[in-house]
């Protein structure tokens, strides 16, 4: 018997360590399922899920859609660029129209932080946040932590450095919450302009030298520079950023220790991570993608199961 403490997955901040562990245990079972020749199970046969994406995504959306289809849910997709949102419809109206067609769950991505939280106060369906602006991206953090647990046996006590554009990253914030709840030590590393001013108050170490961060950590989670969210210049040029903060295979080999390299994708090869580092034996980037489907199946299964 098992149940999450929440009706929605809005952010890692709202869930407990027990919730995360339950999601991981359930995801272990789903990982076995998706590696079978017959990958489909009938668990969510009578559930309809709407994937509502107000912001572009390939990986997350594909991963959610596959997770839903493996669970036999009925899936409808919606992207804002081809919809009536362009004609001036509000968020709540758009979602209520979709729910009027008898949808049980909503997977939502939105450019505004807090958009899924706002919706959760007005609608009955379960909501899974698939990224809200620069705020949270809970399923990414769960799959990152799940991948660390799989690779290193556990998350507790591990040293994890999050390197890159922390300021514009929802992955960073969700990762910090998830990994801290599981007992890891966290360091954030990046140029001062790309670190939030008071990030130290979350109980993380702050470092500006990428080499020191790599020497300290067991796992480096490397983030992309989110140029699309940067309205002003935070650093002189991508070339200069790459020179100071780009991670190469030579740097990793020079550490003379086991280190795990993670990246939530999409990678800008040659900027935050060189090609040879991304393809090296240290990287578990494609394992993260595989685990993403299993973890999302677990989240959808647990949320759907608790509504009865």
């Amino acid at each position, binding site marked *: 018997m*098992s149940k999450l403490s929440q009706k929605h997955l809005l952010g890692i901040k709202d869930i407990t360590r027990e919730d995360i562990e339950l999601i991981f245990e359930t995801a272990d079972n789903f990982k076995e*399922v998706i590696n079978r020749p017959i990958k489909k199970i009938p668990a969510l046969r009578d559930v309809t899920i709407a994937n509502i994406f107000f912001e572009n995504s390939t990986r997350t959306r594909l991963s959610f859609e596959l997770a839903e289809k493996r669970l036999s849910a009925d899936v409808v997709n919606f992207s804002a660029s081809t919809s009536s949102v362009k004609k001036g419809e509000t968020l709540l109206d758009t979602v209520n129209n979709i729910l009027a067609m008898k949808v049980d769950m909503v997977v939502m991505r939105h450019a505004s932080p807090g958009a899924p939280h706002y919706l959760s106060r007005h609608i009955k369906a379960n909501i899974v946040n698939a990224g809200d602006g620069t705020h949270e991206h809970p399923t990414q953090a769960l799959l990152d932590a799940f991948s660390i647990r799989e690779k290193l046996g556990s998350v507790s006590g591990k040293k994890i450095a999050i390197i890159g554009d922390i300021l514009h990253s929802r992955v960073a914030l969700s990762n910090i919450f998830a990994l801290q709840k599981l007992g890891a030590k966290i360091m954030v590393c990046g140029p001062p302009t790309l670190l939030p001013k008071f990030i130290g108050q979350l109980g993380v170490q702050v470092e500006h030298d990428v080499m020191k961060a790599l020497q300290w950590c067991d796992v480096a989670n490397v983030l992309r520079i989110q140029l699309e969210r940067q309205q002003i210049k935070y650093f002189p040029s991508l070339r200069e950023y790459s020179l100071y903060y780009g991670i190469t295979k030579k740097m990793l080999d020079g550490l003379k220790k086991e280190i795990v390299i993670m990246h939530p994708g999409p990678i800008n090869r040659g900027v935050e991570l060189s090609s040879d580092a991304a393809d090296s034996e240290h990287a578990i980037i494609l394992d993260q993608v595989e685990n993403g489907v299993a973890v999302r199946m677990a989240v959808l299964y647990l949320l759907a*199961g608790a*509504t*009865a």
Partner: protein
Amino acid sequence: MQKKLILDSDLLNITVSRLCHELIENHRDFTDTVIIGMQPRGIYLADHIHRNLEKILKRSIPLGYLDATFHRDDFRRREIPVKPNENRIPFIIEGKNVVLVDDVLFTGRTIRAALDAMIAFGRPAKVELLVLIDRKYNRELPVAADYVGKYVNTLASQRVLVELQAQGHKHNKIWLINKD
């Protein structure tokens, strides 16, 4: 709460060894037969039977565990979802005779789900069901066991409690409990 003992340790051993011999009667040396225990509680009985069979036949017999949680028909109809368990089927069941093992046969719904779940691992030639306790008069689906340890007449409101040493209990005892 009233408890009535249905099977004790000695009788359980006799029953299990009878079931083993019944299996041998039909499956001879088990060349094309595999044993699959139902998660979560049928696996202990499956282990017990498997151990005895290997001792009697002096050969190794494939043993697997099957979890039917994702195939249940009561998902979203229960207050709390059932927790899934590990599937461990390290062999091909395509074309094999499968002996499905569970501790208690009650409504038959778990077995229906198990038959569904099994198909994901291949198409067995034949499936048989072995249960330790068959609760008569409580079936909700047309499911019957091929090998039965003991038939028990029960009311739907009663509960069968299986306590096995393998599950961490002090003794092997099977009880019928009246909930009142």
